Protein backbone atom coordinates (compact mmCIF):
# COMPACT_ATOMS: atom_id res chain seq x y z
CA UNK A 1 0.00 0.00 0.00
CA UNK A 2 1.34 3.41 -0.93
CA UNK A 3 2.37 6.01 1.64
CA UNK A 4 0.18 9.09 1.51
CA UNK A 5 1.00 12.70 2.36
CA UNK A 6 -1.94 12.83 4.77
CA UNK A 7 -0.69 9.93 6.86
CA UNK A 8 0.68 12.09 9.64
CA UNK A 9 -2.53 14.07 10.07
CA UNK A 10 -4.61 10.90 10.07
CA UNK A 11 -2.25 9.51 12.69
CA UNK A 12 -2.52 12.53 14.97
CA UNK A 13 -6.30 12.49 14.56
CA UNK A 14 -6.44 8.82 15.59
CA UNK A 15 -4.21 9.44 18.61
CA UNK A 16 -6.47 12.31 19.67
CA UNK A 17 -9.51 10.07 19.31
CA UNK A 18 -7.85 7.35 21.37
CA UNK A 19 -7.03 9.85 24.13
CA UNK A 20 -10.67 10.97 24.12
CA UNK A 21 -11.82 7.34 24.43
CA UNK A 22 -9.52 6.70 27.39
CA UNK A 23 -10.79 9.85 29.07
CA UNK A 24 -14.42 8.81 28.52
CA UNK A 25 -13.79 5.31 29.83
CA UNK A 26 -12.19 6.63 33.01
CA UNK A 27 -14.91 9.23 33.51
CA UNK A 28 -17.74 6.74 33.06
CA UNK A 29 -16.22 4.46 35.67
CA UNK A 30 -15.80 7.40 38.04
CA UNK A 31 -12.10 6.69 38.28
CA UNK A 32 -11.04 10.22 37.42
CA UNK A 33 -11.96 13.15 39.58
CA UNK A 34 -10.75 16.26 37.84
CA UNK A 35 -12.09 19.26 39.67
CA UNK A 36 -10.42 22.54 39.00
CA UNK A 37 -12.10 24.55 41.73
CA UNK A 38 -9.81 26.23 44.26
CA UNK A 39 -10.53 24.99 47.78
CA UNK A 40 -9.84 25.84 51.42
CA UNK A 41 -9.23 23.35 54.23
CA UNK A 42 -11.41 22.91 57.32
CA UNK A 43 -11.26 20.29 60.10
CA UNK A 44 -13.81 18.79 62.48
CA UNK A 45 -13.92 16.11 65.19
CA UNK A 46 -16.54 13.38 65.41
CA UNK A 47 -17.29 10.74 68.05
CA UNK A 48 -18.11 8.18 65.35
CA UNK A 49 -17.64 8.64 61.62
CA UNK A 50 -19.56 5.48 60.69
CA UNK A 51 -18.82 4.61 57.05
CA UNK A 52 -17.34 7.94 56.00
CA UNK A 53 -14.37 7.57 53.62
CA UNK A 54 -11.80 9.94 52.10
CA UNK A 55 -13.27 11.44 48.90
CA UNK A 56 -16.79 11.34 50.43
CA UNK A 57 -18.84 14.37 49.57
CA UNK A 58 -19.56 17.35 51.77
CA UNK A 59 -23.05 18.58 50.88
CA UNK A 60 -25.14 21.56 51.85
CA UNK A 61 -28.80 21.52 50.90
CA UNK A 62 -27.97 18.45 48.84
CA UNK A 63 -25.37 20.17 46.65
CA UNK A 64 -21.76 18.97 46.76
CA UNK A 65 -19.68 21.84 48.16
CA UNK A 66 -16.49 19.94 49.01
CA UNK A 67 -14.78 16.60 49.63
CA UNK A 68 -13.35 14.78 52.61
CA UNK A 69 -9.57 14.89 52.29
CA UNK A 70 -8.42 12.56 55.06
CA UNK A 71 -9.62 10.97 58.29
CA UNK A 72 -7.31 10.42 61.23
CA UNK A 73 -7.66 9.28 64.83
CA UNK A 74 -6.82 11.82 67.51
CA UNK A 75 -5.48 9.91 70.52
CA UNK A 76 -5.60 12.96 72.79
CA UNK A 77 -9.36 13.42 72.58
CA UNK A 78 -10.11 9.86 71.33
CA UNK A 79 -12.20 11.27 68.51
CA UNK A 80 -11.97 10.98 64.73
CA UNK A 81 -10.48 14.05 63.10
CA UNK A 82 -11.80 14.75 59.60
CA UNK A 83 -10.00 17.11 57.19
CA UNK A 84 -12.24 18.53 54.46
CA UNK A 85 -11.64 20.69 51.42
CA UNK A 86 -14.49 23.11 50.72
CA UNK A 87 -14.76 24.99 47.42
CA UNK A 88 -13.62 28.61 47.75
CA UNK A 89 -16.77 29.95 46.11
CA UNK A 90 -18.90 28.70 49.05
CA UNK A 91 -18.27 30.48 52.39
CA UNK A 92 -20.02 29.30 55.55
CA UNK A 93 -20.53 31.09 58.89
CA UNK A 94 -18.21 30.20 61.76
CA UNK A 95 -20.98 28.44 63.74
CA UNK A 96 -22.05 26.05 60.96
CA UNK A 97 -22.85 22.50 62.11
CA UNK A 98 -21.87 19.17 60.57
CA UNK A 99 -23.87 15.93 60.52
CA UNK A 100 -22.97 12.57 59.01
CA UNK A 101 -25.89 11.49 56.82
CA UNK A 102 -26.59 8.62 54.43
CA UNK A 103 -27.70 8.93 50.80
CA UNK A 104 -30.87 6.87 50.54
CA UNK A 105 -31.37 4.13 53.10
CA UNK A 106 -28.25 2.02 52.76
CA UNK A 107 -26.13 4.23 50.52
CA UNK A 108 -22.83 6.00 50.90
CA UNK A 109 -22.29 8.33 53.82
CA UNK A 110 -21.57 12.03 53.41
CA UNK A 111 -21.15 15.09 55.60
CA UNK A 112 -24.05 17.53 55.64
CA UNK A 113 -23.11 21.09 56.51
CA UNK A 114 -25.81 23.42 57.77
CA UNK A 115 -25.13 27.14 57.84
CA UNK A 116 -25.29 28.85 61.21
CA UNK A 117 -26.21 32.46 62.00
CA UNK A 118 -22.80 33.99 62.73
CA UNK A 119 -21.65 37.02 60.69
CA UNK A 120 -17.99 35.92 60.71
CA UNK A 121 -17.13 33.34 58.01
CA UNK A 122 -15.01 30.18 58.26
CA UNK A 123 -11.35 30.84 57.56
CA UNK A 124 -8.99 28.27 55.99
CA UNK A 125 -7.67 25.97 58.73
CA UNK A 126 -10.60 26.56 61.09
CA UNK A 127 -12.09 23.76 63.18
CA UNK A 128 -15.88 23.31 63.17
CA UNK A 129 -17.10 22.62 66.69
CA UNK A 130 -20.78 21.70 66.26
CA UNK A 131 -20.70 18.11 65.00
CA UNK A 132 -23.09 15.15 65.16
CA UNK A 133 -21.80 11.63 64.72
CA UNK A 134 -23.07 8.96 62.35
CA UNK A 135 -26.04 6.83 63.31
CA UNK A 136 -24.84 3.34 64.21
CA UNK A 137 -27.46 0.70 63.41
CA UNK A 138 -26.59 -1.58 66.34
CA UNK A 139 -27.04 1.26 68.86
CA UNK A 140 -30.43 2.07 67.33
CA UNK A 141 -31.57 -1.55 67.60
CA UNK A 142 -30.30 -1.76 71.15
CA UNK A 143 -32.17 1.41 72.06
CA UNK A 144 -35.35 0.12 70.42
CA UNK A 145 -35.21 -3.19 72.31
CA UNK A 146 -34.53 -1.40 75.59
CA UNK A 147 -37.54 0.87 75.05
CA UNK A 148 -39.71 -2.11 74.17
CA UNK A 149 -38.60 -3.97 77.29
CA UNK A 150 -39.43 -0.88 79.44
CA UNK A 151 -42.90 -0.62 77.95
CA UNK A 152 -43.49 -4.35 78.44
CA UNK A 153 -42.43 -4.10 82.13
CA UNK A 154 -45.00 -1.35 83.01
CA UNK A 155 -47.97 -3.14 81.41
CA UNK A 156 -47.65 -6.77 82.73
CA UNK A 157 -48.52 -6.33 86.51
CA UNK A 158 -52.34 -6.15 85.81
CA UNK A 159 -53.05 -9.88 85.00
CA UNK A 160 -51.17 -11.05 88.13
CA UNK A 161 -53.75 -9.48 90.54
CA UNK A 162 -56.08 -12.21 91.82
Amino acid at each position, binding site marked *: *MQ*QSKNDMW*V*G*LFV*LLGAAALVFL*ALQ*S*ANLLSLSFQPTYAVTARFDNIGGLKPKSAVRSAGVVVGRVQSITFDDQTFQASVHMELEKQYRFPKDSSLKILTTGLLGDQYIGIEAGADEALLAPGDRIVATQSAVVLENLIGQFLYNKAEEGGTSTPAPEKQ
Partner: protein
Amino acid sequence: MNRLHPACIGRGLREYGTAVGYATRLLLRLVCLLGATLRRPRLMGDQIHFLGNYSLAIIGVSGLFVGLVLGLQGYYTLQRYGASEALGLLVALSLVRELGPVVTALLFAGRAGTALTAEIGLMKAGEQLSAMEMMAVDPVRRILAPRFWAGVIALPLLAAMFSAVGVIGGWVVGVLLIGVDGGAFWGQMQQGVDWWADVGNGVLKSVVFGVAVTFIALLQGYLAKPTPEGVSRATTRTVVMASLAILGLDFLLTATMFSI
Protein backbone atom coordinates in the same frame (compact mmCIF):
# COMPACT_ATOMS: atom_id res chain seq x y z
CA MET B 1 22.19 15.72 16.90
CA ASN B 2 21.26 15.16 20.53
CA ARG B 3 18.12 12.97 20.88
CA LEU B 4 16.36 15.69 22.85
CA HIS B 5 16.99 18.42 20.28
CA PRO B 6 13.61 20.00 19.38
CA ALA B 7 14.06 19.12 15.73
CA CYS B 8 14.60 15.46 16.62
CA ILE B 9 11.58 15.39 18.90
CA GLY B 10 9.53 17.03 16.16
CA ARG B 11 10.73 14.50 13.63
CA GLY B 12 10.04 11.63 16.00
CA LEU B 13 6.50 12.86 16.58
CA ARG B 14 5.93 13.33 12.84
CA GLU B 15 7.25 9.83 12.13
CA TYR B 16 5.07 8.35 14.87
CA GLY B 17 2.05 10.21 13.55
CA THR B 18 2.80 9.02 10.03
CA ALA B 19 3.12 5.41 11.21
CA VAL B 20 -0.19 5.57 13.07
CA GLY B 21 -1.83 7.22 10.07
CA TYR B 22 -0.54 4.58 7.69
CA ALA B 23 -1.74 1.80 10.00
CA THR B 24 -5.17 3.44 10.30
CA ARG B 25 -5.52 3.70 6.53
CA LEU B 26 -4.56 0.05 6.16
CA LEU B 27 -7.12 -0.93 8.81
CA LEU B 28 -9.83 1.09 7.05
CA ARG B 29 -8.95 -0.57 3.74
CA LEU B 30 -9.19 -4.01 5.31
CA VAL B 31 -12.57 -3.17 6.85
CA CYS B 32 -13.88 -1.83 3.55
CA LEU B 33 -12.77 -5.03 1.79
CA LEU B 34 -15.38 -7.11 3.64
CA GLY B 35 -17.56 -7.30 0.54
CA ALA B 36 -14.70 -8.39 -1.71
CA THR B 37 -13.63 -10.99 0.85
CA LEU B 38 -17.12 -12.47 1.17
CA ARG B 39 -17.26 -12.81 -2.60
CA ARG B 40 -14.31 -15.24 -2.44
CA PRO B 41 -15.32 -17.42 0.50
CA ARG B 42 -12.82 -20.17 -0.31
CA LEU B 43 -9.87 -17.87 0.51
CA MET B 44 -11.44 -16.87 3.80
CA GLY B 45 -12.45 -20.44 4.58
CA ASP B 46 -8.86 -21.63 4.13
CA GLN B 47 -7.70 -18.96 6.52
CA ILE B 48 -10.34 -19.77 9.13
CA HIS B 49 -9.10 -23.35 8.97
CA PHE B 50 -5.51 -22.19 9.35
CA LEU B 51 -6.20 -19.76 12.21
CA GLY B 52 -9.15 -21.40 13.95
CA ASN B 53 -8.90 -25.14 13.57
CA TYR B 54 -5.22 -25.27 14.36
CA SER B 55 -5.80 -23.21 17.52
CA LEU B 56 -8.46 -25.58 18.85
CA ALA B 57 -6.00 -27.82 20.67
CA ILE B 58 -4.35 -25.06 22.69
CA ILE B 59 -7.61 -23.23 23.36
CA GLY B 60 -9.40 -26.39 24.46
CA VAL B 61 -6.70 -27.62 26.81
CA SER B 62 -6.08 -24.15 28.26
CA GLY B 63 -9.78 -23.64 28.79
CA LEU B 64 -10.07 -26.92 30.62
CA PHE B 65 -7.17 -26.14 32.95
CA VAL B 66 -8.37 -22.58 33.60
CA GLY B 67 -11.80 -23.96 34.47
CA LEU B 68 -10.31 -26.56 36.82
CA VAL B 69 -8.24 -23.92 38.63
CA LEU B 70 -11.19 -21.53 38.83
CA GLY B 71 -13.24 -24.28 40.43
CA LEU B 72 -10.59 -24.96 43.06
CA GLN B 73 -9.76 -21.35 43.89
CA GLY B 74 -13.38 -20.29 43.78
CA TYR B 75 -14.47 -23.03 46.15
CA TYR B 76 -11.68 -22.19 48.59
CA THR B 77 -12.85 -18.58 48.94
CA LEU B 78 -16.62 -19.15 48.69
CA GLN B 79 -16.80 -21.82 51.38
CA ARG B 80 -15.42 -19.35 53.95
CA TYR B 81 -18.68 -17.41 53.63
CA GLY B 82 -20.92 -20.43 53.29
CA ALA B 83 -21.57 -19.53 49.65
CA SER B 84 -20.08 -22.59 47.98
CA GLU B 85 -23.34 -23.17 46.09
CA ALA B 86 -22.53 -20.08 44.00
CA LEU B 87 -19.46 -21.78 42.52
CA GLY B 88 -21.15 -22.30 39.16
CA LEU B 89 -22.08 -18.63 38.97
CA LEU B 90 -18.56 -17.56 39.90
CA VAL B 91 -16.88 -19.78 37.31
CA ALA B 92 -19.31 -18.85 34.54
CA LEU B 93 -19.18 -15.09 35.13
CA SER B 94 -15.40 -15.00 35.43
CA LEU B 95 -14.99 -16.91 32.19
CA VAL B 96 -17.70 -15.29 30.11
CA ARG B 97 -17.00 -11.70 31.10
CA GLU B 98 -13.24 -11.64 31.43
CA LEU B 99 -11.05 -14.71 31.18
CA GLY B 100 -12.62 -16.18 28.04
CA PRO B 101 -12.02 -13.20 25.74
CA VAL B 102 -8.71 -12.09 27.27
CA VAL B 103 -6.89 -15.41 27.67
CA THR B 104 -8.12 -16.64 24.30
CA ALA B 105 -6.90 -13.45 22.65
CA LEU B 106 -3.48 -13.75 24.33
CA LEU B 107 -3.13 -17.39 23.24
CA PHE B 108 -4.38 -16.50 19.76
CA ALA B 109 -1.81 -13.72 19.50
CA GLY B 110 0.93 -16.13 20.45
CA ARG B 111 -0.15 -18.96 18.18
CA ALA B 112 -2.03 -17.56 15.20
CA GLY B 113 -0.66 -14.03 15.33
CA THR B 114 2.94 -15.12 15.06
CA ALA B 115 2.05 -17.56 12.26
CA LEU B 116 0.40 -14.72 10.32
CA THR B 117 3.30 -12.34 10.83
CA ALA B 118 5.87 -14.93 9.83
CA GLU B 119 3.90 -15.90 6.73
CA ILE B 120 3.40 -12.34 5.48
CA GLY B 121 6.96 -11.39 6.41
CA LEU B 122 8.38 -14.32 4.48
CA MET B 123 6.17 -13.47 1.52
CA LYS B 124 7.61 -9.98 1.62
CA ALA B 125 11.16 -11.28 1.95
CA GLY B 126 10.61 -13.62 -0.98
CA GLU B 127 9.27 -10.66 -3.01
CA GLN B 128 5.97 -12.46 -3.55
CA LEU B 129 4.01 -9.34 -2.61
CA SER B 130 5.94 -7.21 -5.10
CA ALA B 131 5.44 -9.87 -7.78
CA MET B 132 1.70 -9.72 -7.18
CA GLU B 133 1.68 -5.96 -7.54
CA MET B 134 3.50 -6.39 -10.84
CA MET B 135 0.65 -8.60 -12.01
CA ALA B 136 -1.91 -5.93 -10.98
CA VAL B 137 -3.18 -8.13 -8.15
CA ASP B 138 -3.66 -6.05 -5.01
CA PRO B 139 -1.88 -7.96 -2.19
CA VAL B 140 -4.01 -6.21 0.44
CA ARG B 141 -7.13 -7.56 -1.25
CA ARG B 142 -5.81 -11.01 -2.06
CA ILE B 143 -3.61 -11.84 0.93
CA LEU B 144 -4.31 -9.53 3.86
CA ALA B 145 -8.09 -9.07 3.79
CA PRO B 146 -9.05 -12.78 3.91
CA ARG B 147 -6.69 -13.31 6.84
CA PHE B 148 -8.04 -10.24 8.64
CA TRP B 149 -11.68 -11.29 8.41
CA ALA B 150 -10.84 -14.90 9.19
CA GLY B 151 -9.20 -13.75 12.43
CA VAL B 152 -12.14 -11.49 13.33
CA ILE B 153 -14.52 -14.43 12.84
CA ALA B 154 -12.35 -17.08 14.48
CA LEU B 155 -11.49 -15.33 17.74
CA PRO B 156 -15.04 -14.90 19.14
CA LEU B 157 -15.76 -18.53 18.31
CA LEU B 158 -12.59 -19.66 20.05
CA ALA B 159 -13.40 -17.49 23.07
CA ALA B 160 -16.85 -19.06 23.31
CA MET B 161 -15.29 -22.52 23.16
CA PHE B 162 -12.78 -21.55 25.83
CA SER B 163 -15.56 -20.36 28.16
CA ALA B 164 -17.66 -23.49 27.52
CA VAL B 165 -14.81 -25.90 28.19
CA GLY B 166 -13.86 -23.84 31.23
CA VAL B 167 -17.35 -24.11 32.71
CA ILE B 168 -17.23 -27.88 32.20
CA GLY B 169 -13.83 -27.94 33.90
CA GLY B 170 -15.27 -25.99 36.83
CA TRP B 171 -18.13 -28.50 37.00
CA VAL B 172 -15.75 -31.45 37.02
CA VAL B 173 -13.77 -30.05 39.94
CA GLY B 174 -16.71 -28.57 41.86
CA VAL B 175 -19.39 -31.21 41.51
CA LEU B 176 -17.52 -34.41 40.76
CA LEU B 177 -14.41 -33.95 42.87
CA ILE B 178 -15.32 -31.59 45.71
CA GLY B 179 -19.02 -32.41 46.02
CA VAL B 180 -20.79 -29.09 45.52
CA ASP B 181 -24.48 -29.66 44.72
CA GLY B 182 -24.85 -30.16 40.97
CA GLY B 183 -28.32 -28.65 40.81
CA ALA B 184 -27.20 -25.52 42.62
CA PHE B 185 -24.14 -25.28 40.36
CA TRP B 186 -26.17 -25.01 37.17
CA GLY B 187 -29.23 -23.37 38.72
CA GLN B 188 -27.40 -20.39 40.19
CA MET B 189 -25.45 -20.00 36.97
CA GLN B 190 -28.61 -19.89 34.90
CA GLN B 191 -30.19 -17.34 37.20
CA GLY B 192 -27.16 -15.11 37.49
CA VAL B 193 -25.68 -14.98 33.98
CA ASP B 194 -27.50 -12.44 31.84
CA TRP B 195 -27.52 -13.19 28.10
CA TRP B 196 -26.99 -9.65 26.80
CA ALA B 197 -25.13 -8.00 29.65
CA ASP B 198 -22.64 -10.77 30.34
CA VAL B 199 -22.37 -13.11 27.35
CA GLY B 200 -23.08 -10.33 24.84
CA ASN B 201 -20.46 -8.03 26.29
CA GLY B 202 -17.97 -10.88 26.37
CA VAL B 203 -18.57 -11.55 22.68
CA LEU B 204 -18.21 -7.85 21.93
CA LYS B 205 -14.88 -7.86 23.75
CA SER B 206 -13.61 -10.83 21.78
CA VAL B 207 -14.62 -9.19 18.48
CA VAL B 208 -12.64 -6.07 19.40
CA PHE B 209 -9.68 -8.22 20.44
CA GLY B 210 -9.95 -10.17 17.18
CA VAL B 211 -9.70 -6.98 15.17
CA ALA B 212 -6.77 -5.73 17.23
CA VAL B 213 -4.71 -8.94 17.30
CA THR B 214 -5.21 -9.88 13.65
CA PHE B 215 -4.55 -6.35 12.45
CA ILE B 216 -1.36 -6.00 14.51
CA ALA B 217 -0.12 -9.38 13.23
CA LEU B 218 -0.80 -8.46 9.60
CA LEU B 219 0.67 -4.98 9.95
CA GLN B 220 3.91 -6.22 11.49
CA GLY B 221 4.29 -8.82 8.78
CA TYR B 222 3.53 -6.29 6.04
CA LEU B 223 6.06 -3.79 7.40
CA ALA B 224 8.74 -6.33 8.31
CA LYS B 225 12.25 -5.85 6.99
CA PRO B 226 12.66 -8.44 4.23
CA THR B 227 15.47 -10.33 6.00
CA PRO B 228 15.38 -13.36 8.35
CA GLU B 229 16.07 -11.23 11.42
CA GLY B 230 13.56 -8.67 10.22
CA VAL B 231 10.91 -11.37 10.17
CA SER B 232 11.93 -12.66 13.58
CA ARG B 233 11.86 -9.18 15.06
CA ALA B 234 8.44 -8.57 13.53
CA THR B 235 7.14 -11.80 15.07
CA THR B 236 8.34 -10.75 18.53
CA ARG B 237 6.81 -7.30 18.08
CA THR B 238 3.48 -8.88 17.16
CA VAL B 239 3.27 -10.81 20.41
CA VAL B 240 4.36 -7.88 22.56
CA MET B 241 2.18 -5.25 20.91
CA ALA B 242 -0.83 -7.54 20.64
CA SER B 243 -0.60 -8.54 24.31
CA LEU B 244 -0.34 -4.94 25.45
CA ALA B 245 -3.18 -3.91 23.16
CA ILE B 246 -5.38 -6.72 24.47
CA LEU B 247 -4.83 -5.80 28.11
CA GLY B 248 -5.21 -2.07 27.47
CA LEU B 249 -8.39 -2.51 25.44
CA ASP B 250 -9.68 -4.90 28.09
CA PHE B 251 -9.39 -2.18 30.71
CA LEU B 252 -11.13 0.41 28.50
CA LEU B 253 -13.91 -1.97 27.49
CA THR B 254 -14.50 -3.22 31.02
CA ALA B 255 -14.60 0.32 32.40
CA THR B 256 -17.15 1.32 29.78
CA MET B 257 -19.31 -1.78 29.63
CA PHE B 258 -19.32 -3.00 33.19
CA SER B 259 -18.97 0.34 34.93
CA ILE B 260 -20.40 0.89 38.36
